[in-house]
């Protein structure tokens, strides 16, 4: 089908982003909106293969230490200035200071050079397997040097009216109501974008979002914007299409932090007992309404080098009881910290509590709001705590950080919060990141997965799925592994 041009789409954005300058703020909604205004050097297919965006092509040297990107010519910023390699160099310098994930991703980079206006060369200290996976717009957005260089970034007026190279230009933001972006007529991919305008509607209440969709006021409900319980009902509406695609790059995985440092949970058997005790199928079917997948281990199934060949923990309360007995657990009180992200997570917390109590554990739920919960986790002041994290396509980017002992530090809410420390795992992840070729990496990561699943440093629950609901007339919205985050570039309306 030939794409048609023209039309306006109303999408929901939840929660309202705190800002739109992707280089400065990077939470989910910011990426979702600004991913259409800014661009990265690459995008990723649903299989997480790199695709060209601002970089037309790239080459990797034999030793896997030099990456050369050829930039696309004729790309202009929304204000008409040309986009060049100088912008890339500046962006990298800026992101190193403002974008924590980018900084981590760039630690392996020795230097970045621009031999000419349209070439950028990265030289690495050592080979880094996932290197080509760090150029997506959310991870490394390109910033206009001419507007930011030499200014106070924090108060730069363009933070409020961001200027990118993307298919859409920022037009207007009525705080608390909507964000409006309009077609970039000079977009470097000829003919794109097809849409004239996109409105991002801010509707803070989930039920109200469903209604807005039902009454035709919005056309796109990106993943996670309605309650799971509502998904089946909405899917059945006329002219409604649902897809779970578009999350491959992030692959959110939910698990329970288990505080490995102290108390009964320091015992591997108790942690295993927890895995057996929890009915994860129930959680998937009832709480997540059948969406998602029971996790088998530290890697989501969409992530590179995933293996299902690991020890299994089916729901088995009897076994859990036996293990507890074996470990000498005598009903010591265990504190459970649910995630205060709304009803689904609260219900899940209650279900898990019930599961654990059923096998004879004494559970006390600690109530806090999000900020208070973060503080407790950061202070290691918990026994069991809910979380879910993105995995960013490669175990070296999103998985290892949660298990290696170098990532243990007080005051942080991710990374190795559970206090698991295993030299073997440390080594495997260190090697895996720099190993070449791919087959070698695969071998290392599979081994790591087996060890981790045996040790149960945390209790993996579900690979979450956040389906995107939209009207069927919206075509081609999700074409890449990062989904709606840069989706409107290709989307068109079948009127």
């Amino acid at each position, binding site marked *: 089908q030939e794409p048609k041009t023209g039309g*306006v789409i109303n999408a929901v954005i939840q929660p309202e982003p705190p800002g739109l300058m992707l280089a400065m703020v990077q939470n989910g909604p910011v990426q979702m909106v600004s991913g259409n205004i800014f661009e990265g050097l690459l995008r990723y297919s649903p299989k997480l293969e790199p695709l060209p965006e601002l970089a037309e092509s790239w080459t990797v040297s034999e030793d896997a230490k030099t990456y050369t990107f050829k930039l696309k010519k004729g790309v202009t910023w929304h204000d008409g200035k040309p986009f060049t390699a100088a912008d890339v160099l500046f962006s990298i310098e800026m992101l190193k200071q403002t974008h924590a994930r980018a900084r981590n991703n760039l630690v392996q980079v020795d230097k970045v050079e621009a031999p000419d206006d349209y070439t950028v060369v990265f030289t690495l200290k050592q080979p880094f397997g996932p290197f080509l996976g760090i150029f997506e717009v959310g991870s490394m957005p390109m910033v206009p040097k001419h507007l930011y260089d030499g200014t106070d970034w924090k108060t730069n007026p363009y933070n409020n009216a961001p200027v990118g190279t993307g298919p859409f230009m920022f037009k207007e933001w009525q705080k608390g109501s909507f964000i409006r972006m309009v077609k970039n007529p000079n977009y470097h991919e000829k003919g794109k974008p097809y849409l004239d305008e996109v409105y991002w509607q801010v509707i803070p209440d989930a039920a109200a979002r469903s209604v807005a969709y039902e009454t035709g006021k919005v056309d796109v409900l990106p993943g996670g914007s309605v309650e799971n319980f509502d998904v089946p009902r909405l899917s059945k509406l006329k002219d409604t299409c649902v897809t779970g695609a578009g999350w491959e790059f992030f692959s959110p995985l939910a698990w329970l932090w288990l505080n490995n440092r102290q108390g009964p949970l320091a015992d591997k058997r108790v942690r295993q007992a927890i895995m057996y005790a929890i009915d994860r199928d129930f959680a998937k079917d009832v709480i997540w309404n059948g969406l998602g997948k029971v996790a088998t281990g530290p890697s989501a199934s969409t992530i590179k080098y995933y293996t299902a060949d690991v020890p299994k923990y089916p729901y088995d309360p009897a076994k859990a009881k036996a293990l507890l007995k074996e470990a000498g657990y005598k009903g010591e009180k265990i504190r459970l910290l649910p995630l205060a992200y709304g009803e689904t997570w609260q219900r899940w917390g209650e279900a898990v509590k019930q599961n654990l109590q059923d096998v004879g554990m004494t559970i006390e739920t600690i109530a806090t709001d999000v900020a208070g919960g*973060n503080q407790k986790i950061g202070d290691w002041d918990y026994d069991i705590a809910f979380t879910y994290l993105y995995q960013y396509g490669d175990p070296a980017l999103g998985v290892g950080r949660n298990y290696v002992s170098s990532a243990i530090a007080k005051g942080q809410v991710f990374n190795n919060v559970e206090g698991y420390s295993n030299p073997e795992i440390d080594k495997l992840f260190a090697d895996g990141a720099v190993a070449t070729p791919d087959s070698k990496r695969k071998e290392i990561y599979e081994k790591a997965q087996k060890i981790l699943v045996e040790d149960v440093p945390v209790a993996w629950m579900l690979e979450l799925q956040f389906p995107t609901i939209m009207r069927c007339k919206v075509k081609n919205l999700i074409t890449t592994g990062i989904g709606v985050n840069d989706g409107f570039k290709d989307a068109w309306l079948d009127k």
Partner: protein
Amino acid sequence: MLSFVAQRVVKGVIVLLAIVVLNFFLIRLAPGDPAVVMAGEAGASDQIFVKQLREKFGLDKPLPEQLFIYVKGVVTLDLGFSFRQQAPVSKLILERLPATLLLTLTAFAISLMLGVLFGSFAARFAGTFLDTGITVFALIFYAMPIFWVALMGILLFSVTFDWLPSFGYETVGANLTGLAHAVDVAKHLIMPAMTLGLFFMATYTRMTRASMLEVKRLDFVKTARAKGLSDAVIQRRHVLRNALLPVVTLAGVHSGTLIGGAVITETVFAWPGIGRLMYDALLQRDYNLLLGVFVICSAMVLIFNLITDLVYRLVDPRIEFAS
């Protein structure tokens, strides 16, 4: 009278400063750290990043110094910079204030008008079926959670009948001006204002009723009857006015709290008001923004308290202004 107002304003400013200081500490007593929250959202939580954030917001400075900086700002009408939204607090609040005032004042007017109306009916027909009916009716909107009433309203008027828009402040993208715009906003306003108004209505209904029954038995009502005034006029002019005092008091208290108290209504109807802003700021420990909202709310309440006291004086001439 003018000097009374002037005095109250001066006092108000002092109270406001005290409130600022106390709130400053109160907010910080709550567990949670804005830097950690933000780091969490950004999907990265290494310590360098958190430290950077803390430095950026001045959270690394000792508390008294932070307080000093903040108070100094407030005195010069600068409410600081929102950590999370990266914008001046006063700008963020001012953006939302009109919508909030529109919603709350409308709701307030609705609740007061309906409340007093129903209350006087209930009093006039005390003990009858009508009285019971009004009581139950008012209590339903009061005791039923707001979100429930709101959602039922949406389902009925937006989904089933498609009469009223279900969310927002105006039709996005319609670019209406003048009267058309006003009508559009009014359409959006009806449901949230009614929801909120019906909630507060119960208090006024009950209060008016009780108070009127009390006043009804006073001697001057007999005088009024002896004049040959009609029942309606007696109720309105003699009974109601005298019964209004506690209603005015309560209205004063509510009018202020309404500003920050409409979180749920604003949420369900996606009304871009301050309640929502405050709620988010609170959950994210966006200290400056939260404090800013508190300061604005406090100022509003103080203003409303002053107005209440002046209205009191209008309603009850026996109350003298203390000087």
